[in-house]
C-alpha cells in the first residue's frame, strides 16, 4: 500500500498535474458560481479536454473541477442567495443572512475552512477505507456485482426528491435501455440500430452527458431566463467585511466541522445519497444538538449553520469516490460521469484498480487533498477577482457554453450527425426536466448498463438460468435484501402516508 501511495504522490505532485488541479479548481469555481450550472455540467464540459491527457491527469482535473464547482456554488449561495448546485442550498440558509449582516467575508472564510476540514478528514478516511474495501471486494463474484449494482441503482432512485421516486426509476430504466443500443458485446448481434452504422457502437457517453447536462442546463437557462446576478454579486463582494475568525469562534466551530465531516463522509459513501443529503442531515443534526441560544440563531446567520453543511458536502464529495474507485460503481451523477470517462480512457474501475493502476487510484485521492489546499490558499483570496468573470453578461456566456458543449462532442467524433443527435437528446432532456424527471439516474443507468448486463449474463450462465444466484451466497443475499428494502420502502411510505391522510380527513372535516 505504501508503494501505491508513493506512486500516487509522485504522480499527483508532478508539475503538470499540479497545474491541472489549480486549473480545475479555478474553472470549477467559476462554473459553480453560475446559477443553473452545477458540478455535473462543469465536469461534462471538461471531458473532451481530458481525452487529450493521460488518465491520471484527466481524473485529477475532473476532481479539481468537482471541488471547485461545489466551492463556487457556496460562494453564490452566501453572496446572493442563489445556490450554484443543490448541495450548497443549505449553506444559503445561514450564509446569506450573514452576508446581509455585513459578514460575507467571514461566511466565505468559514465555508472555505470547513470545506478544507471536510476534505482533509475525508481524504484520511478515504485513504483507510478505499484500500480496505477494495481488498474485500476482490472476493466479489459476478452475482455480487449484479446485486450491488441493483443496490446502487435503486438507492439513487430512493434518494430522489419527494414524488420523484417512480420517475427516477423510470429514468434509470431508460438509461439501461439506451445502454442496450448497438452491437451486443456478449453475442455480437445488432440491437436497436435500425440498420444505422452510426448506432452500431451505441450512444456515446460523452454525447449523452453533454446533451443532458451541459447543453440541457444551458438551454433551460435560455428557456427560463434567470435574473442576471453578476451585478448583485459584484456589489455584494465590494463590502464583504473581514475574513478573520477569532480563537473563540474556532474553538466553538472546530467540533461542529469534525462531526459534520465524519457524518458527510459516511453519507457520501452510500450509493445515491451524496452531498446534498449530507449537507441537510448535518445541518439538522447540528441544529438539534446545539445549545438553546445557539439553536435560535439557525436560519438567522448562525456560523454553525454554515460550517456544518460545508464540511459535510465536501466530505461527502470525497466519500462518493469510495464506491467509484473500489467497486467501479458510482454513487452519484457526478461520479457516474467520472466512471464513464475512466472507461473511455480504457481503464476498468473496480477492486483491481488499486492493484493494476495504483497511479490513478492514489493520485486521485492525493490530488483531492491538494485541491482542498488550492481552494483555501488560492481561491479564497481570489474570489473577488474570479467573480469579476461573472461580469460577462449572460447574453455572451450562454452561447459560449453551448459552443463549448457542441464543439466538445464534435471535436471527438468530427461527425455532424452527433451534433444533431445531441440537439435532439437535449430537447428531450428539457421536456423531462420540465416534467420534473431527474436526469442523473438516466446517466447512471446508461453507464452501468453494460457492466450490469455482463454480470447478469455470467451469473445466469453459472446458475443455469436460475435466479437463485441472487440469494445463494451470503454477500449476494445481503445486497439483494438491501436492494429490495430500498426499492420497497418509498412505495410503502407513500401508501402509509396516503392511508394516514385518508384516515385523518373525516376528523379534519368535523373540526371545520
Amino acid at each position, binding site marked *: 500500500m505504501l508503494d501505491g501511495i508513493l506512486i500516487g504522490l509522485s504522480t499527483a505532485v508532478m508539475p503538470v498535474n499540479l497545474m491541472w488541479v489549480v486549473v480545475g479548481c479555478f474553472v470549477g469555481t467559476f462554473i459553480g458560481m453560475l446559477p443553473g450550472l452545477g458540478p455535473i455540467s462543469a465536469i461534462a464540459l471538461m471531458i473532451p479536454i481530458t481525452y487529450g491527457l493521460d488518465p491520471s491527469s484527466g481524473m485529477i482535473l475532473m476532481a479539481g473541477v468537482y471541488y471547485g464547482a461545489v466551492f463556487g456554488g457556496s460562494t453564490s449561495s452566501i453572496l446572493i442567495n442563489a445556490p450554484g448546485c443543490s448541495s450548497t442550498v443549505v449553506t444559503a440558509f445561514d450564509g446569506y443572512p450573514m452576508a446581509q449582516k455585513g459578514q460575507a467575508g467571514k461566511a466565505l472564510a468559514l465555508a472555505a475552512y470547513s470545506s478544507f476540514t471536510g476534505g482533509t478528514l475525508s481524504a484520511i478516511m478515504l485513504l483507510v477505507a478505499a484500500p480496505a474495501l477494495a481488498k474485500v471486494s476482490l472476493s466479489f463474484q459476478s452475482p455480487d456485482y449484479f446485486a450491488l449494482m441493483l443496490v446502487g441503482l435503486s438507492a439513487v432512485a430512493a434518494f430522489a426528491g419527494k414524488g420523484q421516486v417512480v420517475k427516477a426509476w423510470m429514468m434509470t430504466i431508460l438509461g439501461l*435501455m439506451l445502454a*442496450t443500443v448497438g452491437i451486443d458485446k456478449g453475442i455480437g448481434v445488432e440491437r436497436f440500430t435500425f440498420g444505422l452504422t452510426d448506432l452500431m457502437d451505441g450512444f456515446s457517453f460523452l454525447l449523452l452527458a453533454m446533451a443532458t447536462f451541459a447543453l440541457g442546463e444551458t438551454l433551460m437557462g435560455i428557456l*427560463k*431566463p434567470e435574473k442576471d446576478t453578476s451585478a448583485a454579486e459584484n456589489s455584494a463582494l465590494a463590502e464583504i467585511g473581514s475574513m478573520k475568525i477569532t480563537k473563540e469562534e474556532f474553538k466553538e466551530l472546530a467540533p461542529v466541522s469534525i462531526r459534520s465531516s465524519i457524518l458527510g463522509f459516511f453519507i457520501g459513501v452510500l450509493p445515491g445519497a451524496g452531498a446534498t443529503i449530507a449537507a441537510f442531515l448535518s445541518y439538522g443534526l447540528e441544529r438539534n444538538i446545539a445549545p438553546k441560544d445557539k439553536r435560535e440563531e439557525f436560519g438567522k446567520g448562525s456560523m454553525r449553520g454554515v460550517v456544518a453543511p460545508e464540511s459535510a458536502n465536501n466530505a461527502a464529495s470525497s466519500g462518493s469516490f469510495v464506491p467509484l474507485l473500489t467497486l467501479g460503481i458510482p454513487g452519484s451523477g457526478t461520479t457516474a460521469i467520472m466512471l464513464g470517462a475512466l472507461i473511455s480512457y480504457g481503464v476498468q474501475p473496480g477492486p483491481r484498480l488499486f492493484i493494476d493502476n495504483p497511479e490513478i487510484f492514489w493520485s486521485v485521492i492525493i490530488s483531492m487533498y491538494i485541491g482542498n489546499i488550492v481552494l483555501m490558499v488560492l481561491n479564497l483570496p481570489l474570489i473577488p477577482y474570479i467573480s469579476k468573470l461573472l461580469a460577462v453578461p449572460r447574453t455572451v456566456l450562454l*452561447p459560449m457554453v453551448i459552443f463549448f458543449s457542441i464543439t466538445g462532442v464534435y471535436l471527438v467524433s468530427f461527425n455532424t450527425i452527433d451534433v444533431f443527435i445531441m440537439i435532439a437528446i437535449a430537447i428531450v432532456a428539457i421536456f423531462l426536466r420540465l416534467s420534473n424527471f431527474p436526469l442523473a439516474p438516466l446517466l447512471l443507468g446508461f453507464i452501468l448498463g453494460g457492466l*450490469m448486463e455482463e454480470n447478469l449474463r455470467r451469473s445466469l450462465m453459472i446458475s443455469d438460468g436460475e435466479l437463485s444466484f441472487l440469494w445463494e451466497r451470503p454477500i449476494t443475499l445481503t445486497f439483494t435484501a438491501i436492494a429490495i428494502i430500498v426499492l420497497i420502502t418509498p412505495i410503502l411510505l407513500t401508501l402509509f402516508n396516503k392511508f394516514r391522510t385518508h384516515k385523518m380527513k373525516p376528523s379534519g372535516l368535523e373540526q371545520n
Partner: protein
Amino acid sequence: MKLKSESLLCRDRIGGIIFLIFCLTYGYQTTLIPLFPGDEYEAFTARTLPWMLTCAGIFLSLLLIAMAQPDEKSGAVFGFDWRLLISFVLLMIAYGFGLTWLGFVLATSLFLLAGFWVLGERRKSVLFGASFPFVTAFWLLLTKVLDIYLEPGYLFLSL
C-alpha cells in the same frame, strides 16, 4: 373521488403514457433482435435484458399513470420563453449544417454572432469582438498548437 380534467391529463400522466408507448415500441423491437440457432436453450441471450427492461418499464409507466399528481403538486414548471428556445434550437441545427458546408471558423463565428444577437446583445464591439477574433484564436489553438485537423467546409473545397 372527482377527477378534474386538468388532473386527468396532467404532465405526470402524459409522461407516463409516452413512456408506456416507448416501452411497448422497445418491446416490439426486442422481438426483432436476431437469435442464433439453439439460443432458445440458452440461459441468457441478447434479448434477455431488453425483455426485463420492457417489463419493468411498462410496470413503472402504469404506476406513474395511476399515481400521477396534478401539475401544481408534481413540481412541473411553467412560464417560459419558448420562442427564444426554438430560435436557439434552429440556430444550433443551422450550426450543425454550417460545420459541414462553411467550415469550423465561419460557422462557429456566425453561430456565436447570431446567438448573442438572439439573446439581446446589441453592442457591436461584443457582437463582432467575441465572435470572429475569439473563434480564430480558438481555431489557431486547435490546429497549430494541439495539431487537430479541421476539415474546410464543402463550399471552400468545391471552389
